[in-house]
């Protein structure tokens, strides 16, 4: 029987291109390109590695996002993913993590059989890390979060979870959901040939009606949280006093006399 893998990916502004304005200390994201969330690239790679090793594996990537998020899906297909679904509808806009998880869980349910769902540990733009485990709860399945590797052995799914105080190896039966750590593997590059093939093959686009949720359950309306306000964090005024090579004794004197360093 085919092993069905779903990878959930999110398109985000490239954080390497997001720069901090040195004066206002705000982030300038406007210039940044949109890319696949870095941890999701690792999630795609984790899925592809299972496909490399096991027989009869089928991988679908899904994203909830605006129409231009299809570039992320094409990119994933050009790395070796079989199918892609863009879940897109005006009604999804402004979702917090609850309706985001609900929408993705409804999409996966509509897809039919699934064995392993992969997600990234967190996104680089709002980085809650709540969407993956939320989907697992909606679907009522096991999960392993913050994993550095996943493999299949004797019909069990194994995963290494990297915790603050050690590495925990878990095993469970599918269906299950795995969240993958950023940089936990080296993602393969998309190839031009496969990119052309995937554009030819095309992606599916599903709307709210296709996944069967009520409009008031999704997007902003379906979100229990609201962003009340945003304020710039007042930076402590920092002087930026300069010291050159050859002035280290002076520098140490300064730190000691101001009580910053006690020797």
């Amino acid at each position, binding site marked *: 029987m085919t092993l069905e893998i779903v990878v959930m990916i999110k398109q985000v502004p490239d954080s390497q291109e997001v720069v*901090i304005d*040195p004066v206002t*200390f*705000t*982030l300038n994201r406007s210039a940044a390109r949109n890319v696949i969330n870095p941890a999701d690239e690792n999630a795609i790679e984790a899925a592809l590695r299972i496909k490399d090793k096991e027989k009869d594996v089928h991988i679908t990537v899904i994203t909830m996002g605006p129409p231009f998020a299809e570039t992320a899906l094409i990119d994933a297909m050009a790395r070796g993913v079989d199918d892609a679904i863009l879940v897109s509808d005006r009604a999804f806009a402004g979702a*917090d*993590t*609850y*309706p985001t998880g609900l929408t993705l869980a*409804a999409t996966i*349910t509509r897809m039919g059989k699934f064995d392993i769902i992969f997600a990234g540990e967190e996104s680089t733009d*709002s980085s*809650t*890390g*709540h969407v*993956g*485990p*939320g989907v697992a*709860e*909606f679907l*009522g399945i096991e*999960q*392993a*979060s*913050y994993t550095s590797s996943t493999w299949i052995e004797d019909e069990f799914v*194994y995963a290494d979870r*990297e915790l*603050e*105080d*050690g*590495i*925990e190896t*878990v*095993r469970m*039966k599918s269906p299950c959901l795995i969240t993958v750590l950023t*940089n936990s593997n080296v993602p393969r590059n998309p190839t031009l040939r496969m990119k052309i093939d995937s554009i030819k093959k095309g992606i599916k686009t599903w709307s709210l009606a296709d996944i069967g*949720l009520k409009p*008031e*359950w999704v997007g902003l309306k*379906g979100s*229990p*949280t*609201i962003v*009340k306000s*945003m*304020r*710039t*964090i007042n930076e402590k005024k*920092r002087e*930026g*006093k*300069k*010291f*050159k*090579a050859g002035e*280290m004794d002076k520098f140490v*004197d*300064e730190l000691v006399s101001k009580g*910053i360093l006690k*020797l």
Partner: protein
Amino acid sequence: MVGLVNAEPPENAGEYKNVLIFLETRQGKLAKPGLEMISVGAAIAHKVNEELIGIVMGNKIEGLVQEAGEYGCDKVIGLKSKDLEDFRTIPYSVNLSELITELKPNILLIPATRNGRDLASRIAVRSKTGVTADCTELDIDPAERILQARRPTYGESTLAEILCKRHRPQMATARPGIFSVPERDPKRKFVSEIRKTTIKKEFLKKEIVSFKPKSTLDLTSAKIIVSGGLGLGKPSGFKLLEELAGEIGASVGASRPTVDMGWIERDHQVGQTGQSVRPDIYIACGISGKAQHIMGMRLSKNIVSINTDASAELNSISDYIINEDLYKVIPELIDAIKRRKSGEKKPAEAPA
């Protein structure tokens, strides 16, 4: 399993009261990120004349329940079962959710650690409520009893205040290393209760087959940190930093790419996906100051940036800027410190 249903506010939201905190355990001990929520949780609860209730789950928890009370919980509930000995998502979330149904807390706080976030995500869905992630400020509007959960966003440049007005409990996770652990007082009075529970087999399908503990370095309580970035150029650069650290009693920190390259262990990493630190002095050596790094160290009392690039982003938030090659200036700094310690005078400057 809740099924595919929406987040629904309870009709009796006004009846929900008290602040519940999940006290995470690690290898049979109360972990620091959980204890860090006690002061802030108590402040919120007491502001509206409610109680702070600590929840401890595990097997041998009698001592931990006592400890949680001594640290400042008004009430501690221990859930005891051998199946709760180690954190596992489903048995923990099923049990915590049953407590939520019973106690109807207005607010639930969970530490934003890996297991804490794992748990919080599922509890929020089970309770059909919202959760504000990774908060660094928590307060309450006393009139409406609405949790004001604030979290840094956009590379720590802005603080977003997020509210969950109608759904209960109002949930937030608290970023480790931000709130301080209160004094432990063995004479403190509190109420406690230990309940034995049994966990259904169907909830125990995930097995932990092994656990390899790693020594952990707690940078969050370090007073001085000497931290290295890619500017070190090679793994042995950390040797030089260790030498400097040794002279001033500092811990060694690192930027993420140096960790990814295997130059130093991961528990040295500072930043968004590492530790959030706030020492008296943070000496950054060859670190550019990208948003994700700054997130973890910008609350340091004093920041020193040693960088060959005068326009490095980190310089804009530094108290001291040493615009030099670190391999030239750090040995000079070490010598200067040694001289200062021994009371020696600086040797006469060699003519250029």
